């Protein structure tokens, strides 16, 4: 089964399969024997085709955080749930939803659900990094849903407002 992982802005396909007593990673047309061994001091050894790196790993939900002992480099790898991918590929186009460009706080909501807006009209004002940013309508349309309210904080990529193009249903 193919899995999709995100490292930074890159999306990378890979599969994991059983091979004998262990596992192999399939990526880019190559197969690499892989293993993950827990060491006593909370560190792990990551082995790929005989090459070993020591690291600390922490995991929550779909995120794996890796910090290499050798140079202190930190990385986050997100496993992209195939169910989520499927949902996005099907109905509810992502083009209709304004997502938060970064974590922040909602200062004002200047539209109501069902309201018609014109391109360039301010829908929501958010504050991130100590600056106000207006989320403006990127086309003429109708507010289908507001996902936030004033005073609320949100994480990056949180949906803020759903704006349907006019004439759609």
């Amino acid at each position, binding site marked *: *089964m193919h*899995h999709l*992982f995100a*490292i*930074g802005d*890159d999306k*990378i396909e*890979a599969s*994991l*399969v*059983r*091979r*004998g*007593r*262990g*596992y192999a*990673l399939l990526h880019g047309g190559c197969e*690499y024997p*892989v*293993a*993950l*061994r*827990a060491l006593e001091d909370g560190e*792990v050894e*990551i*082995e*790929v*085709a005989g*090459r070993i790196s020591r*690291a*600390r*790993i*922490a*995991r*929550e939900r*779909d*995120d*794996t*955080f*890796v*910090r290499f002992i050798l*140079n*202190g480099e*930190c*990385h986050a*790898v997100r*496993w992209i*749930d195939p169910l989520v991918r499927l949902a996005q590929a099907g109905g509810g186009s992502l083009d209709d939803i304004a997502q938060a*460009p*970064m*974590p*922040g706080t909602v200062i004002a909501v200047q539209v109501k659900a069902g309201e018609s807006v014109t391109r360039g009209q301010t829908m929501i004002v958010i504050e991130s*990094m*100590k*600056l*106000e940013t207006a989320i403006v309508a990127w086309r003429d349309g109708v507010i289908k849903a507001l996902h936030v309210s004033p*005073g609320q904080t*949100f*994480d*990056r990529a949180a949906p803020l407002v759903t704006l349907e193009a006019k004439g759609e249903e």
Partner: protein
Amino acid sequence: MPRPFRTVLVANRGEIAMRVLRTVKAMGLRGAMVYHAADRDAPAVTAADLAIPISGSTPVGAYLDANEILRAATQADADAIHPGYGFLAENAAFVRRVADAGLVFIGPAPEAIDLMGDKVRARGFVERRGFPVAPSAIEDDDPASFAARAAKVGFPLLIKPSAGGGGKGMRIVREAGALDDQITRARSEGQRYFGDGRLYVERYVERPRHIEVQVLGDAHGNVVHLWERECSVQRRFQKIVEETPSPALEPAKRNEICATAAAIARAAAYRNAGTVEFIYSEDGTFYFLEMNTRLQVEHPVTEAVTGIDLVAEQIRVAMGERLRFCQDDVRQRGHAIELRIYAEEPARNYAPATGRILRLGLPEGPGIRVDSGVREGQQVTAAFDPMLAKLITHGDSRGEAIARARFALEHFVLLGCAINAAFLDRLLAHPAFARGEIHTGFLDAHPELAANPPIDSDTMLALLAAAALSQPQVLDAARAVPEPHASIGAWRN
């Protein structure tokens, strides 16, 4: 007449709450804390002798609510309130209410905050007393003509809220067409952050250095300076690296700028800890920027080189004691540097990051100090400022302080939320930084520092392997596929 305290209430959160608490307890005083529910997992809550919950319409609102803080102070039977920085630290009305409640505010008198907290008034005062001030500043005494007068100053312009601080609401305007819109936004931000929408505008100077001077005064008219700090490396007008001594200053210029700061504080009859900020240009001229009437984020570098605990001095002065040293006693020994550890992604224009702190390990070693306000398991949210901790290193020379800072960064472990540690290391390794050739536009001039370096293929494979072998759904999918050779699992011991 000295009036000793028994209990000090710390009206703040995060690393500065921990920092103040440490000295309060070391002085044998009882340390009380306030905290909003969003901070219930913060280390200060358990480190305090008493922690009192406060509430508000937003988490930040709770820490800004004078009624809540005073209620907590009464409940804690506190004699004095230490405001830390931010929140109510420079709110003169709050300081008066503290006094009315029969408590001592550990900070300057409200008159000093009134004078220095308002950029327009402060600049006028400093100028009248004959100290150097920024060219081309105008004040918003006639809102109707403000935009026209601002345009006359000449572009690029820097707009600031008159009551502002910490870079909030500051905007550079490079062309007349954008001026009206930027004024409207800056007014709104000033109104919201400081309850005061009046603006201040000055000609923006390219490539300036930010040099500030720590001052300390007592209630008996004594004022000393504790030398300078250079805080030129900034992003979005916020400091991220601070050091002392400044690599830009020769001894004569250092004495001149520090003496000027002390004289300004003396002219303002300033007491307690404060900081006089200057813009310093490459040709050696400097002018007054503003005075911060509080303990600053970057105070630890001053503590490192002078050996003076600034929080302890603040508390002693607030108790009415005389300064225990005079100007000649205050020496700079070696070099100190502070790095602000932010939950943010430099490669995404320094956007704040959120997440749960899954692993936390703080560096230790000679000359290394960590002021941290977080613990393992704590959620980092967008509700508060993204600064999590500060790394402070001290060495015999600037080179040694930088080397120790890089060692400390390498051993600073925080997993679960993106932080700026790798970026800070790239910054420290930059040859221009090593030569001390810095200015407030340094990061804009070196955008490559903010970018994530490409990941090599070996690293990427190791990351994919670690994620695939850790993610239960991926392991389950692999196990669900029949394999002729029996597997005993991923974790081969």
